[in-house]
Every structure is written in C-alpha cells, then in structure tokens.
C-alpha cells in the first residue's frame, strides 16, 4: 500500500487545455499606399467570433520597429471583447510624423483573444495576424469611391439638394468636380430641367463623408426622377437615376403664422373676390353706421 502512495505522489498533474472556440479578423491588413508626411489615417479591423458567451481579453502587439510610434489602437492595446457581441470593431489609427522619410514601411499586428481567467488550466489563446504596409511619399493622390447617392425630400420653392456619400481614398480633400442633373416628370416622359452642380462640398483625405450641392428648381409637389452623372475632373465616375419627392410648402417645416394667413386668404381668385367683397361691405357698413350715429346726434342736439 505504501508503494502505491509513493507512486501517486511522484506523478505530475497536467490539466487539459482550455480551448476558446474560434476567432477571426477582417480584413487582415492595415494598408495605405498614399500617405504623406503629416497624414492621419484610420482603418477599422473587425474582430469576430461565432460564440459570444463570455468576455474575451484582446491583446494587441504592434511589431513594426520603425513605425510603432505612429500606430495606436482606439481602445488601447488591451481591451475587452464583450460577451453578447459577435463582431467588435477595432480602429487602427496611423499618424505619420511630419519628418517621416519617403519609404514603404512594413510590420505586423498580433491580435490575441483569450478568456479573462486562466481557470487553473493550460489556456489556449486564439489570435490572428494583420500585415501592416504603409507607403509614405510626396505624391498627391486624389480619388474617391461612391457609397450612396440621395436627394432628400424638399418643399416647393426650395432648392434641390444632391448628396453623395463618398469615401475619400486619396491624400487630399476631394469632391465631385461636377454633378450633371436632368429632372424628369413622375412618369419619366419629359425633361423638366437640366443643370450642373459645380460647388459640391469637400470631404477630407482618407475620410468617409457627405459631399452636398444645390440646384434651383421650380417643382410642384409630387414625385420626380433625376438622372445624374457624377464626375471627377473629366472622368465619369457614376451615372444612374433616382426617385425623389417634392412636398407642399409647409408640410416638412412649419411656416410662420403670418405667411399661413396670407396664403389662406390668397389661395384662389374666388377666395380673393369673396374676401374683397366682405371687406368692402364691412367698410361700407361701418361708414353707414358712423353717419347714422352722427345723424342721430344732430337730431338730438336740435
């Protein structure tokens, strides 16, 4: 029996691995080929997992000796991927120093996910590696990707607003150089107006933003079509057609009361005529009443 106890005591206990189910990142890279000294650039890496039962501790290691100081993670290098979420965004922020040399810089982001507690076992952490490639040069690059195009509803008498949500993928601020518009009737049978918008608003480098411009139109309430062409310099970037709505004045925004009264009184020639006649009769009545009172006073005075 003593032999058995001795045998057991000399054993070494190794508990099983505690395995995390799965983990992934998308995209597995941080890349920009158009940085210039002083550029600010942000890229989202989406962390994901199919099982979201527990919090995960995320640890990010930046392996990029030359450019480590340029790179920051919005949530810090250690943060929690909260339970209940299958996707969790991590923003990689790159600030290129003003004195950065022209070169292409490489590195890696090691993103590791592990349970919060080791639970007394051999823990398996799952991770993923994102490649870093940042090219710094003095070249200007201007281009954009269109995300959405819209014409928000507006009221009669207001200008048409044309909105392009775009992703500026260049290193200078950008806007469509021209938007050509053809406004068609509800049935897309007749062109009502054509024109160009040349003064769209700007979107900063490496940002997603809205570039907006206006065109004067004189459209009654109803539904219309707009055929559009969006240009970058002389290049036609996109063309399509879009449906939009014009509403009666005052239906989207409340009007001042004075304007509402004035519009009510002058809504139709018939109403103007009736109001004029009533007004005249009212005036005549007052004058007649005044003279009648005057007459009575004179009589009583006598």
């Amino acid at each position, binding site marked *: 029996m003593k032999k058995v106890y001795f045998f057991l*005591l*000399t*054993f*070494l*206990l*190794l*508990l*099983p*691995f505690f*395995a995390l189910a*799965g*983990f*992934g*990142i*998308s*995209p*597995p*890279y941080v890349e920009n080929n158009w940085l210039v000294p002083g550029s600010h650039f942000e890229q989202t890496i*989406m962390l*994901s*997992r*199919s099982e979201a039962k527990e919090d995960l501790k995320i640890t990010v290691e930046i392996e990029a000796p030359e450019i480590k100081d340029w790179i920051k993670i919005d949530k810090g290098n250690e943060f929690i991927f909260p339970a209940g979420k*299958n*996707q969790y965004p991590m923003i990689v922020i790159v600030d290129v120093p003003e004195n950065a040399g022209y070169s292409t810089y490489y590195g890696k982001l*090691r993103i*590791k996910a*592990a349970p919060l507690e*080791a639970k*007394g076992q*051999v*823990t*398996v*952490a*799952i*991770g*993923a*590696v994102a490649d870093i490639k940042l090219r710094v040069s003095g070249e200007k690059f201007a281009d954009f990707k*269109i*995300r*959405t*195009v*819209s014409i928000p509803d507006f009221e009669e008498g207001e200008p048409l607003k044309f909105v392009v*949500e775009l*992703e500026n993928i260049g290193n200078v601020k950008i806007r469509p150089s021209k938007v050509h518009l053809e406004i068609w009737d*509800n*049935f897309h049978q007749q062109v009502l107006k054509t024109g160009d918008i040349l003064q769209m608003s700007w979107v900063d480098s490496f940002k997603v933003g809205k570039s907006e411009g206006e065109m004067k139109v004189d459209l009654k309430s109803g539904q219309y*079509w707009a055929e559009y062409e*969006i240009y970058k310099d002389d290049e036609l970037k*996109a*063309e*399509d*057609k*879009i*449906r939009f*709505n014009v509403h009666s004045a005052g239906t989207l925004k409340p009007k001042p009361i004075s304007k509402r009264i004035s519009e009510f009184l002058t809504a139709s020639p*018939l109403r103007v005529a*009736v109001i004029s006649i009533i007004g005249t*009769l009212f005036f005549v*009545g007052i004058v*007649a009443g005044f003279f009648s009172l005057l007459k009575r006073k004179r009589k009583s005075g006598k």
Partner: protein
Amino acid sequence: MKKFFALVTVGFLGIYLVFQVPILIVPRALADVATSTVTVGNAAPVVSDISLNGGADINLTENTTTAVTATGTVTDYNGYQDITSVICKIYRSGVSGAENCTSNDNNCYQVTGVTSSCAGNSCTVTCNFNVWFHADPTDSYSPQPSEYWVAWIKAIDSQGASSSATNTTQTVDVKTLIALDFTPSIDYGTYAPGSGDASTTHVTTATTTGNVAIDVNLSGTNMTSGSNSISVSQQHYATSIVAYSSGTALSMSAARLELDTGKPTTHPSNQAQNIYWGIYIPEGTPLGTYTGQVTAEAVAD
C-alpha cells in the same frame, strides 16, 4: 337702420349664391353631358436607387452568418399596390450567369424583398441576406481583387410585367476574413517526472472558419506552478502522429505551421487539419499542477 341690416344680409346671400351655384351645378351638368372611356394600360414596375450595405465594404463573422442589407426603390405607375413581388440577389461580379446565378453560399444569394414606406407610386424595398463566413472575398488581398459584390433587385407586378436594376454606382467588396477554430481541448493527463509521451498522440483540430486559406502560428509560455516551471519547449507538435523527438518544439516566439487546408466552401467548414501534441516532463520537476498558455494565430496563407 333695420333697412340697412336687411340690405347687408340680402347682399351677402346674393354674393354667396352668385359664386356657389355654378360650383354646385356645373360639374353635374357636365357629367350628364359627356361620358368618357379610358383604358389604363399596364406599366412594368421600375427599380432604382439600389444600395448594398450602404455602399460600405462587408466584414463577415467567423464561423457564422452576417446580416447584409440591400435596399432600393420600386415604382409602378399603376400604383404601388400593383407590385406583387420583389426578388433580390447579391452575387460576386465574376460569378457565372451574373444575376441568373444559381444560389450558392460562396458567391450568390437570393431572398424575397419586403416593401415599406409606400407613397405615391413608389415603395422602398429592403432585402435581408444572411451571408456565410466563407463567401468569396473580393478585396485587394483576395484571389479576385478586380471583382466586387453586386446587388440586383427585380420587381414583378400583377400582370407579370417586371424590370430589374443593380447598384451601378457602388463597388462593394467582401473583405478577407482570416479565422481559426482550435478545438477540442487537449488532455495531456498525468505524468511522473522523467516520463512523457512517446509520440505526438494528443490531437486538436485547426479549422479554418473564414473565407481564405490560412496557416497557423504556434507559440506558448512556460508552464508554471508557483515558482516552478516546465519549459515551453517540452511540448512538441506535428501535423501527424510522429515520435515525440521528431515533433516541433513549441517556442515562445510564433512559428508558422503550414496547413494543407484551403478556403472553406461549405458550412460547417470543410477545411480542417489535425495537429498532434506530445509532452515530456523532465527529471527533477517538482510535483504540482502546472498552468500555461498556448497561442494559435491565424495568418493568411
């Protein structure tokens, strides 16, 4: 005075009658005079303003589906009530057949669209797709960098007339997703100092749960029990069962293990590879329960 008020009242009545009588009588009189017949023809619905995922690139979720939405506007000049059904597809631009592609969770999805916010002759259409983790990527890291994903919406009316359109102004990519599932747990069991596995017999499976082929970087920490430790290099691994001494020693720095697997094409993933482990406990290792960490990193193949 009485005469004056009577005059004013009669005046008002007269004016009312002068203006109101024609309004009441004239349309009825006209309706009696003429009967017109108009045949309203059928107009096919028009689809416009299609957007996929708001124009943003799509990030998938490891080993499961991700909700992706396509929207559009459907107009029918016979009234929006005439729109009877809407079919929506999203597909990789290079897929065979384009909008006629056969449903395939790698490159072609089809759902029925739902109309809402109907006004005038138009409705908004929303199409909700659940896109699997293995859907083909089209970004610059993918095998199809010049391709993108297209949203296509077709509206059909009560007479069977239809039309369709795509999101021509957008180029939406499905981003590369590298992902790994590393299970099940390994149970080394209980060993006496100076003993261990003769071969790498403890198996775990590395399953690719993204949309590209991956390799795995393996690293670890020393296993510790209080102030005592077992070197990380005592754990060996291989892609098959080999003698313990022939396995690769685990290291604190990541070492790449080439997997023979490719891109998953089905769910559950059909790309998995076993990794075999063994351990040897050196002589003189003090008794205890040792803990440590092994890290398995997915890297693009």
